């Protein structure tokens, strides 16, 4: 019985993202000496911070079997509003609070429409995607806004040699992980993602859970936007475009299912984000042909999803024959 004895293959299939991550690290490490330097590690983490924060929020929504396409627009809006405010002379803290409020507001709006109006998340967030970007373009009059240095200073502030973006990233991942694994809310997110009907029968307040998930996603998007512009020093009209796809791709790479109920922030999404970022970083380090970038990134995503579906098929097969995987 081939499929039971071949345990190594199975566990490799099970941890496909980790295996690919290890392969990517090894290949780039061999090709470029500076890839494994401490400074480069810091660079990768800094660059991953904004995407990582957004992907953490996205994981919550994906776990409820939803999707949030509006995160890139929330990021953009966060950038536009905060930079407008700071340029106009408002203190930083006020700009930040307004931005977080905007993120929460968008999250609530998404959640409310999904829960109350019973509109499919894909459509709801597609609408808020256009609204957010439109509003941002309107506020910025489609001009790039350059930020005062006070903003950039936040991005380069270090605590014990660790840049602020990484600290924000780690905080969000830790809080996200604790929320999912250590609280009733987290467990109910998984339950709702598996089946809203069953969750209702079990006495879970499904609407509240969905609302909170979208709220967290919106909040994370605005934090991610702030972290990104504190490094960029400017907000251009294309800022945040396609971030939603990168965030979804990172979460899925980390093992989160688009059908809900399956996935983790730590290690899942974190590894997914780092994998994406390491590939980008490594390709620059070895000065690869620019045409290779999308090919390799796409190839890795394809591989992971392929392996995941192979694993799924195999489990189905085992289940049909009454053998349960321990």
């Amino acid at each position, binding site marked *: *019985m081939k499929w039971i004895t071949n345990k190594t293959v199975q566990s490799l299939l099970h941890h496909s993202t980790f295996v690919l991550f290890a392969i990517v690290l090894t290949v780039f490490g061999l090709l470029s000496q500076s890839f494994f330097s401490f400074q480069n590690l810091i660079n990768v983490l800094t660059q991953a911070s904004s995407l990582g924060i957004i992907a953490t929020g996205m994981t919550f929504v994906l776990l409820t079997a939803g999707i949030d396409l509006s995160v890139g627009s929330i990021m953009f809006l966060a950038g536009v509003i905060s930079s407008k405010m700071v340029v106009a002379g408002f203190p930083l803290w006020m700009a930040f609070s307004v931005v977080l409020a905007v993120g929460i507001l968008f999250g609530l709006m998404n959640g409310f429409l999904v829960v109350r109006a019973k509109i499919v998340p894909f459509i709801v967030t597609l609408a808020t995607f256009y609204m957010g970007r439109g509003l941002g373009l309107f506020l910025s009059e489609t001009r790039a806004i350059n930020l005062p240095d006070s903003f950039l200073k936040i991005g380069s502030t270090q605590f014990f040699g660790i840049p602020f973006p990484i600290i924000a990233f780690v905080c969000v991942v830790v809080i996200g992980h*604790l929320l999912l*694994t*250590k*609280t*009733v809310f987290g*467990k*109910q997110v*998984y*339950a709702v*993602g*598996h*089946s809203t009907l*069953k*969750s209702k*029968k*079990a*006495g*879970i307040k499904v609407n509240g859970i969905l609302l909170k998930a979208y709220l967290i996603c919106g909040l994370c998007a605005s934090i991610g936007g702030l972290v990104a512009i504190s490094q960029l020093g400017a907000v251009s009209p294309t800022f945040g475009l396609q971030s939603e796809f990168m965030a979804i791709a990172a979460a899925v790479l980390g093992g989160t299912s688009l059908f809900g*109920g*399956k996935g983790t922030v730590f290690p899942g999404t974190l590894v997914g984000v780092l994998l994406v970022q390491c590939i980008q970083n490594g390709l620059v380090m070895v000065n690869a042909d620019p045409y290779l970038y999308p090919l390799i990134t796409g190839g890795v995503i394809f591989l992971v999803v392929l392996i995941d579906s192979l694993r799924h098929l195999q489990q189905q097969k085992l289940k*049909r*024959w*009454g053998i*349960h*995987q*321990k």
Partner: protein
Amino acid sequence: MLLEFKDIHKSFGEVAVLKGIRLALETGSVLGLVGENGAGKSTLMNILGGIVPLSSGKMELSGKVYSPDSPNDAQTNGIAFIHQELNLFPNLSIAENLFIVNFPKKKVMGCHFLDRKTAREKTEKILSQVGLDVSPNMPVANLTAAQRQMVEIAKALSTNPKIVIFDEPTTSLTRHEAQKLFNLIRSLKNEGLAIVFISHNLDDVMQLTDHIAVLRDGELIAHDETTSYTIPTLVNLMIGRDMGDFIPRRDTVTSGETCLEVSGLKAGYIGPLDFSIEKGEVLGFYGLVGAGRSEMIRMVYGLDPMEMGTLRWNGRKMHNLNPVKWIKQGVAFLTENRQDEGLMIDQTIAKNVQLAVLPRYTKSLNRVDYKEVGKRSRAQADAVNTKYQNFTTQVVSTLSGGNQQKVVLAKWLLTKPELLILDEPTKGIDIGAKHEIYTLINALVKSGSSTVLISSEIEELLGLCDRIIVMSEGRISREFKKEEFERSAILEAALHHTEEEVL
């Protein structure tokens, strides 16, 4: 009296489904609730469980008026309802499933966190109560159907109920597992709980209960001690008429001409298997859950891949099996899982019945001749006695289980099959519908077609088949001809090992 129903009425719109039910429930006893689908069993229990409100009448719990406004309210009043469809989250562990709403918490730095240690201890205690020896951290996805049932029961018991309602708890269990469940129910009874047991399996009801209440058309027909009933009297009470032979007789004999021949079929733990079926024959397959009957027939039909084996249909070798090919050859397959595989559950009856024959009724330019196909499909649905309000607009999911099954049958009969494969065709459907399905099988065979019948009910096989093949652990353990039919021998063949191992 622990619980009394006093003159309960319930109507949905203008349809009265319960007409003045008076019934009492004692502590430390098991009440069997039987009746055909639509007799009002579920509605009565849904009222007790707080899922629907009653229209008039009242319930008294320990002498006090009891009127639950939600399932949670019913639960706090000590009523636990274990539904036929389990409400478990396979992606969570057992402990998480048990405490998904009221998880034990602890305070760390002013925040409420899950207290996994307490949850684990509590879970272990409850699991040992139902005799389930698995880790509380085990994901439910890794449990067998029986274990999941136990978890669901454990979940119900964790609320310290006074009354536990079991709705068809044995449909996905093997006999052995069902016996374990009955032992558990008996021990709950001895602890002083009142149990309501709903089942179509009258053997189980007779074996387990102290009292039996029979409902028919929303009225309580009989309520007495179990010992005062026999299965035939129960059946008569449920149906409201004398059914005569519950399983109708058939006098035709097989033609001796082979239509399907299977040899060397093998995949995974299944096989190698060799058997054949003759024209005009009903071939039965018996075995325990997990014996590989469904898996075997799914391979034959090309739904799952086989590793090796050859199939001959009317003497011709078949390659690259798939359902489309079989349907063209006149072989139809009614799958075990009618809701997911046999029906488009959210589509109308008409669309479901027509599905398999649409390619046969076309006009020029390949357009479907809806007029003709509509006429024929309606005639077929009526021929199998499907009860519906509107053939073209009513959605299948609104039908009862028995009528859903008839829709699937009508679909396949419309293709005029030479061979009809039935996988558990009577699972979870009421006695009247069962009787009708038996009649249909006989009629089909009389017209010269053949039938493969996979069933877990021995009576059914004994009554209908010309030959029974018993499977165990993926192999054929014994074959019985009609004159050798004997209940105990068949059971033994299913329970025990394959012939080689015996030898």
